[in-house]
């Protein structure tokens, strides 16, 4: 890009540079997304096809009634996430969202441990009537009914 180049060439070089960078960024993004995007599972899928422990995923379902236990340290909880066909045990250390109760829907972010327990880094529950995690919104009515029957 010295001044020896013709004007047309400098423009061409600049355009090529920009294109290479943008295409490079796009390719890199596509490659990284394949490895880093966190997939959403329901318990049935997680049991049938467990994700590897080093992969961050999300697990969604109902907190099974009667399964919620607190460890003696007072901050670790364990519960079962249920979709009516399978259950996955979940462990979470932290302050639970305010509307997290047995029988309610939950989305857990974390990874599946080697022992088959899902270790959650974060729990998403219904915040209020207007703010529901997207996955919970689509949970079938049948699952909800079932969850309600179990709580009764």
């Amino acid at each position, binding site marked *: *890009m010295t001044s020896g180049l013709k004007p047309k060439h400098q423009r061409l070089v600049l355009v090529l540079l*920009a294109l290479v960078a943008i295409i490079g*960024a796009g390719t890199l993004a596509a490659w990284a997304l394949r490895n880093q*995007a*966190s997939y*959403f599972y329901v318990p049935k899928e997680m049991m049938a096809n467990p994700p590897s422990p080093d992969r961050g995923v999300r697990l969604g379902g109902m907190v099974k009634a009667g399964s919620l236990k607190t460890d003696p340290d007072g901050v670790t909880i364990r519960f079962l996430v249920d979709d009516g066909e399978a259950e996955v045990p979940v462990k979470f250390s*932290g*302050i639970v969202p305010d509307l997290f109760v047995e029988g309610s829907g939950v989305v857990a972010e974390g990874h599946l441990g080697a022992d088959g327990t899902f270790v959650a880094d974060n729990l998403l529950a219904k915040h209020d009537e207007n703010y*529901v995690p997207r996955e919970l919104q689509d949970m079938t009515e049948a699952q909800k009914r079932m969850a309600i029957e179990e709580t009764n």
Partner: protein
Amino acid sequence: MAAELGLAAMWLAAALAALQLVAGAMAMNARADGTSELAPLVRPAAVLQGLLAAFAFLSLIYLFAVTDLSVKLVALNSHSAKPLIFKVAGAWGNHEGSMLLWVTVMSTAGALIALVERRLPEKTMQATLAAQGFVALGFYAFLLFSSNPFERLPTPALEGNGLNPLLQDIGLAFHPPTLYFGYVGLSVAFSFAVGALLTRQVTPDFARAMRPWILGAWIFLTVGITAGSYWAYYELGWGGWWFWDPVENASLMPWLAATALLHSASVLAARDALRTWTIMLGVVAFSMSMVGTFLVRSGILTSVHAFAVDPERGTFILALLAIYIGGALAVFAFRAGTVAEGERFSITSREGALVVNNVMLSAILAIVLVGTLYPLLTEAFDVRVSVGPPYFNPVSAIFFFPMVAVLLVGPLLRWRRDSLARIRPSLVIVGLLLLVGIMVALLLSPIGILPGLGLVFAPALAVASVLPLRGRSLRRLPLATWGMVVAHLGIAVALFGMASESAFSEERLVAVQVGQTAEVGPWKVRLDGIQPVAGPNWTALQGRMFASYQGGREIEIDPQSRSFWVPPQQTTESALVTRWNGQLYAVVGNEAGDGKWQLRLWWKPFVTFIWYGGLLIALGGLLALVGRVIADLKRRHAKGRVAQRRKEAKA
């Protein structure tokens, strides 16, 4: 009555926007010798349109202030028991009101350019205002046909639904308007770009006319992002300051584009190079604001920001998005070839460094855009994914750090052509600092690669950013140069804060009984008691705690877990203790049994530098803006005097 007046004002404003579009387009197409009869109407139409939109928005604020429950929007989003400030802020804390704010800001900006901008050829101005009218018209249509904020209820409601408690915060009063000013400033830059492209006037003058608007937009976006980050930090109670949430990305993407545009416009203004690239960035920057508006307001994402869940509205915004971006890209494709080649430059020059800046920023923009839209794309194939920090952090860093490396030397280079040998002393200083940084980072290991890189680059960048001041008279330095120095220093400060926060934060999660103490980093925190407290529209459990730093004086902190009753919802109010070298962050959770309470404590060294840095960046922008505007005014004054003298001489 106020509702009807507001609605009428909105219809009139929409009609004027249409007039502005038609008259501007006709004036632009008039032959070179003749002028269109409608041309003199364009500027007054723009001014009047701005006034009417402002009037409509003020009517809405009035309706919220007096809680007129016969208006549907007020009944749905307000409550008579709310404090007045939140009633007023509630006017834009909902879908319809925020869209009205959008269009009001845009029309006011249009009125302003119609009033003051006289540098460009009149035809370019007509084309610019026509483009502005075209964009505004779409938003008026959106408001009038699918999101009327002034709709009345058949029978007035007895009481309002209240405002989402997360939004009942002083931050709400400022956060959305700030971001909207940013988005809308970019719409002005976009109109200028379209105007310049249509009339083939991509000149340094055009860059100078556009620059204050980019700078203004960029300042507001910077402040908006900084404030939004801090707000999420203390309001959500998760201890994080950036989540790569789609809504955050929606504000980051226009910022990235505006940053690139700002730098390329300065090349165009100073050196008449990068002409088409600047136009392209102008189109991209506004497209990103539109994408941001679409993501946030269409209800395609579920978040506290998504007010509209009506699919019709999402479709409407998507249609607007397609029309504007598609139209602009089409104009670009047809006209870009006719824009003459700009000045040339060597790779080792200020322009060369700025090209790197532009390319890297565009690459980061592409990465953020792809990551943000990817979940929406896969959902079309019924695969649900979410994309978070494990993707965004490393992938954007691949382009961010090379950009910072160039930023170390770029501002030291001269325009057009320079050699690294000339700035060798500065290079040596920066190089030594980097080496020291690397050694310190290695000694401190294990810390992650990205925080390590941040800790290495931040001090070097801080020094490099003030090096352009070397050997220059500080008193005679243009304000705009000060702006550059301060903004770059702000990046160093923010980078240091981010790196330090992720490298050295300590977290503690415990259940303690009243009277017991928990430790986190250098802090000891004693739980003194838990008591119920009540606010105007909420009750809360409040933890009373005493925190002491390295055994020093005890400071009382009172984190709360609040329950609102209209609408019923709970929020976590964190408590912060700020020291110069970091923040203690405390959250109180639920009762854990046996009289124990859950506490979550963080010690975050230098976390506040993130936001200080953000504010410095904005301050730098402000200095540059003031400097540019003053210089423009002086130039205009001088030109006026020259013209007058010439007249006198003639006489």
